């Protein structure tokens, strides 16, 4: 072995390579894996230099988050006020807030730290569902400030709460009941605003929209730091217009030696005509480097189940809510799918409800009939309500699926009680069905919608338990720990067509590792999410996770 080869020794290396499932030593040269095996196989014969800093650790392939968004990096410039604990990019455990008083207190703290008296205070992550369905009123926010504009964005990103000064400046205080300005019990606006009209007006008077600001290097660095903390070495940004400025920020970040994650941005189909999109992907692919992988396109067919905007087949929403929204017309979908399919581009198609899944399957089927394409791996994203018949169609069409296992924990109870009812909620994010039918699948967080943490996502798929403790379809749909680990490593890489270079620890691939304190295959399955993550190795570069 050459001089610049480093051999990492570990307590155990879980390779996720079925032909060599475990090892103790891995040799790395120029950022790639030269060999995996035992001391005898790797060190004894070659005399290579051994780095034993991981001798008490367990190495896994670096985790692959197949569906998350750069907005995770953008949001952490703002205070978090959600109900669940979350890890900041600085490595700090940010405590979840159980009630309105705690939220007000955190906002007061943030407000006190602000120097510009005029600047608006934005916060994110508020989720009334998980604090007993209480609302955050403008009076609550007035306790933080009556003079500084305050806007708290919900975990769903579609609803916000503002204080009285914002309503007054926006003239939304008492002069309207347009659908997006929610009234309180007193007949006056409660401070909750939703929908594009109210949001437009609020952002206009605030002079800024925290959800659409220009991407900065700081945002990308925060995204990379959060990845490192969670053991992630390959991460998607699964819906991006890919404006020139974004492309430049990604280019610059990915070329830095110390940039510690491989980025896989998906171009949002909605921002381009298919002809432009095909051209743009071609150009972007030519600029790929080892840490930047353009090539996939995202289509969004419907909305979300918990927001009642997903498109459901009969019998629809359990509570009788009207069917959801199309973001792409069903009759337009086949031509968009065909344009990218024919150009050899891989599609990631967001379908939450089963009616959306059905029209996506129809569109891919038509494209496959018109122009059969081996190994296209078009992937349904979320696909939370698919039944066995739909999984069988995915299988026959050569498709993959990326299931939203975190939903079981965060919204499993509302799916059981409100959106889907017991039967369909029990097969929510049907990883067991995918296995039985043989559809290649990954599982994901959709961060920042839910926290970025593949081990937690794996825990959800293994334990299938909601935040209230309700177990959903565990007998039929749960994964074993090993299957779940595959879904956050090699199989997630497969859905991104990157399984030839990442996703397992084997000769030839990038030296990307998640460094864990314990062996996930040995801890109790219900402890999977609690395994401490030391950091990552990306292309042979060791990154200790920040701790604060």
């Amino acid at each position: 072995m050459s001089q610049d080869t480093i051999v990492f020794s570990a307590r155990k290396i879980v390779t996720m390579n079925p032909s060599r499932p475990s090892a103790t030593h891995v040799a790395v040269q120029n950022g790639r894996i030269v060999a995996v095996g035992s001391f005898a196989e790797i060190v004894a014969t070659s005399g290579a230099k051994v780095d034993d800093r991981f001798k008490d650790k367990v190495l896994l392939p670096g985790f692959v988050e197949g569906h998350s968004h750069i907005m995770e990096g953008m949001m952490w410039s703002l205070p978090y006020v959600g109900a669940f604990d979350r890890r900041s990019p600085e490595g700090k455990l940010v405590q979840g807030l159980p009630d309105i008083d705690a939220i007000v207190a955190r906002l007061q703290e943030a407000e006190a730290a602000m120097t510009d008296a005029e600047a608006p205070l934005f916060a994110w992550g508020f989720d009334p569902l998980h604090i007993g369905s209480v609302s955050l009123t403008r009076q609550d926010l007035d306790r933080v400030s009556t003079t500084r504009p305050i806007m708290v964005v919900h975990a769903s990103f579609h609803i916000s709460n503002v204080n009285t000064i914002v309503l007054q400046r926006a003239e939304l205080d008492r002069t309207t009941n347009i659908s997006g300005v929610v009234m309180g019990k007193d007949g006056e606006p409660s401070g909750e605003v939703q929908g594009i009209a109210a949001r437009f007006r609020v952002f206009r008077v605030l002079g800024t929209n925290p959800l659409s600001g220009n991407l900065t290097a700081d945002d990308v660095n925060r995204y990379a730091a959060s990845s490192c903390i969670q053991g992630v070495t390959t991460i998607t940004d699964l819906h991006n217009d890919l404006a020139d400025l974004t492309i430049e920020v990604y280019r610059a970040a990915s070329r830095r030696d110390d940039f510690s994650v491989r980025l896989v941005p998906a171009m949002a189909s909605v921002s381009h005509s298919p002809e432009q999109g095909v051209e743009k992907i071609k150009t972007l692919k030519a600029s790929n480097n080892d840490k930047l992988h353009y090539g996939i396109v995202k289509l969004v067919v419907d909305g979300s189940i918990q927001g009642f905007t997903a498109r459901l087949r009969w019998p629809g929403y359990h509570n009788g809510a009207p069917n959801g929204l199309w973001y792409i017309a069903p009759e337009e979908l086949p031509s968009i799918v065909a344009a990218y399919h024919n150009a050899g581009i891989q599609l990631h198609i967001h379908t939450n409800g089963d009616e959306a899944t059905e029209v996506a399957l129809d569109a891919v089927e038509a494209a496959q009939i018109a122009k059969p394409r081996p190994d296209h791996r078009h992937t349904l994203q979320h696909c939370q309500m698919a039944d066995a018949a739909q999984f069988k169609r995915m299988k026959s069409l050569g498709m993959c699926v990326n299931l939203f296992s975190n939903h079981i924990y965060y919204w499993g109870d509302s799916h059981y009680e409100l959106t889907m009812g017991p039967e369909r909620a029990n097969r929510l994010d049907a990883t067991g069905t995918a296995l039985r039918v043989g559809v290649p699948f990954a599982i994901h967080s959709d961060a920042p919608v839910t926290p970025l943490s593949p081990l937690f996502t794996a825990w959800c798929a293994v334990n299938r338990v909601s935040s209230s403790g309700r177990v959903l379809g565990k007998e039929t749909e749960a994964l074993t720990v090993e299957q779940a680990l595959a879904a956050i490593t090699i199989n997630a890489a497969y859905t991104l067509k990157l399984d030839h270079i990442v996703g397992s620890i084997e000769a030839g691939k990038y030296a990307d590792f998640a460094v864990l304190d314990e062996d996930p295959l040995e801890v109790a399955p219900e402890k999977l999410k609690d395994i401490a993550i030391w950091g990552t190795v990306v292309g042979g570069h060791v990154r200790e996770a920040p701790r604060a």
Partner: protein
Amino acid sequence: MTAASSAKIPVTVVGGFLGAGKTTYLNHLLRTGSARYAVLVNDFGAVNIDAGLIAQHDGTTMTLTNGCVCCSIGGGFLDTLGRILDDAIPFDHIIIEASGVGDPWRIAEIALVEPSLRLNAVIVVADASRISKLLIDSHVGDTVRGQFDRCSLVLLNKVDLLNRTAADAARATVAALRPDIQIIETTEDTLPVLPDGEVKATSRFAATAVNDSVDHESAFHRWSYRRSGTFDRGQLTAALAALPPQLLRLKGQCRIAGDASPALLQMVGQDWALTPAPADMTAQNDIMLVGVGTDALPDAAALDAILDGALIQVSQTHPTTADLNRRHAAFTL
């Protein structure tokens, strides 16, 4: 307030399902109008907006993109519209093409809450040869029906593709959704000009047909409410919520206790907005509202009683004919 309201930019939203002819209509408006338009479009349909026509108008066109995490219209659209409002020279008119599966009213609401805008019209273009089928389509029927809920004008397009019986059937299907609405039959060559100006702006509250030979007067009822005095704001909110669903529209001038100048009330369905009354309405110091409802609208006394509950002082007035004429000029109802 007067200066600001006279500078309001009219907004027209054009909605309707894919292929109905929305973009063709926009191109027609650009070809026939002379004003400086800002046009926001979904650029990826079969027909594209003619950039040459935009240039001819010294106008601008921008493409809507959904910038949000996973759904709905997001930052991109809002930022674009913001830039249009900030343009040094105000545009004469903003025309927004809603997506083929979008709800045009959601966009129209922007013009009701943004003080520098006023809502001119919400026009739904429907393909006469497809609309009856679309309305009952299992995938998109609910979406297409929703687009008509609060529009102010329907262009029943491509009627030249149909015989008279089929065209009448298409018209009847749309009329069944919205008995109160004006339906104009069009072809690619006979698209109407943009409803414009103060007078036409209120036409969404009227069913007086310009090119419409069918008399819809019998299909709906009107209700006029005149009082001197002022409304209590909180009571008015409750009273408006208590009005029956058969009342489709309510519009006019009123006074709100504590406000120095009169307000313009505009209510469509359950949604309402109070904005400063335009200058040409501010001569009056009383309450003058006119409503349009279905033929099942309760009688005037019942409706009067609901709004009377919101008055701080009640006194019946008997306006002169001259007053009424003046009001009619202002409201064109």
